[in-house]
């Protein structure tokens, strides 16, 4: 997976949002609201190819969760990003 070009993570009143800012995103008229862990993952993988396993490992590095939980969260988040159109499969 890879984050598509032209999306920028920004912070407003302490909350994270991803905004379409590239030319290819001129008609992307929505914003994705992210929690802290999603924003942490986004910052870690932006500009790189990544897998659900990479996201899982990143979650395990940072948070005290079981591998099972981290893996489920990572898979759910990846699916959500793909559905939102901000990540390619």
């Amino acid at each position, binding site marked *: 997976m890879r984050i598509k070009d032209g999306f920028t993570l920004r912070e*407003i*009143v302490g909350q994270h*949002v991803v905004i379409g800012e*590239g030319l290819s*995103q*001129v008609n992307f008229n929505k*914003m994705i609201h992210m929690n802290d862990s999603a924003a942490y993952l986004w910052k870690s993988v932006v500009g790189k190819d990544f897998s659900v396993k990479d996201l899982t490992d990143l979650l395990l590095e940072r948070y005290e969760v079981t591998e099972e939980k981290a893996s489920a969260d990572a898979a759910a988040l990846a699916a959500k990003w793909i559905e939102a159109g901000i990540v390619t499969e």
Partner: protein
Amino acid sequence: MTEKQTYKVAGHVFSLTLDNSALWKSLTNYSPFVYEGGEEEAFSLKIVPEVDLSGKEQLFVSEPENGEQRIDIHTLPDGYVFEMAPLGDLPICGWLKVSKDFSVGHLMTVSNKIFCINNALMLMYAFRTAGMDTIEIHASCTVNSGRAFLFLGKSGTGKSTHSSLWLKNIPGSWLLNDDNPVIRIVDGVPRVYGTPWSGKTPCYINDNYPVGAIVRINQAPKNEIHKMSVVEGFASLYSSSSGLRAIKSIADGLFATVSSVVQKVPCYLMDCLPDAEAAQVCSNEVLGNA
């Protein structure tokens, strides 16, 4: 005879140079904004018979919907060129060549000259001032009780209609601008300024008021108003702000200004019908909280 005229809109000075006196007579929307002081120009536009487009590379081709104008963008070795047409299925009639920092523009037009000049000045204004606490907004703006109320929405959602309902039904209301007002943060206070650009409504008022509220208009089968969170307000105002977000300095400027405005001003979503009650419901809420 070549003539140059200088204008000031929301405190930003710019000039227009052209040598066609008939055209000047059609540019009366700029008359209230004539400026004769000595402040430095933020940008200048000159109408020229020809522009050099060598080295042009396509950057963005618009896909205008019904009734929307076309603006295609190309890069040049030393700047950009914006190619424009009043409607998507009409041929390109204006070529605006601008420097990388949007301070110097040259416009060649073959038809629809007034459209091209207005469009070129609006583009240059939005892009040049994006990093200067200023945003050009696609909105209709009504003033009441010394405060400006902005109505946002996609083309055809009823921004102008909602303004006109205030003018008819809410005493003390008047129209500041019907299509492209400017918000500028001055001494920490977001203010709305009238501009020479007001869509189909000739309303060119050189005046400004603090923003009372920002209301997104949404057609619905009933009248209901909802307060937005700061993040929702940001999404609402950002999507109605002009600017080429693919240029990082513009995206950064827009983000800074829009996020500051929505932390200082209440934002709403107004589900509404095009009726008098819509203006009542909206004004009851926003005038009380402004």
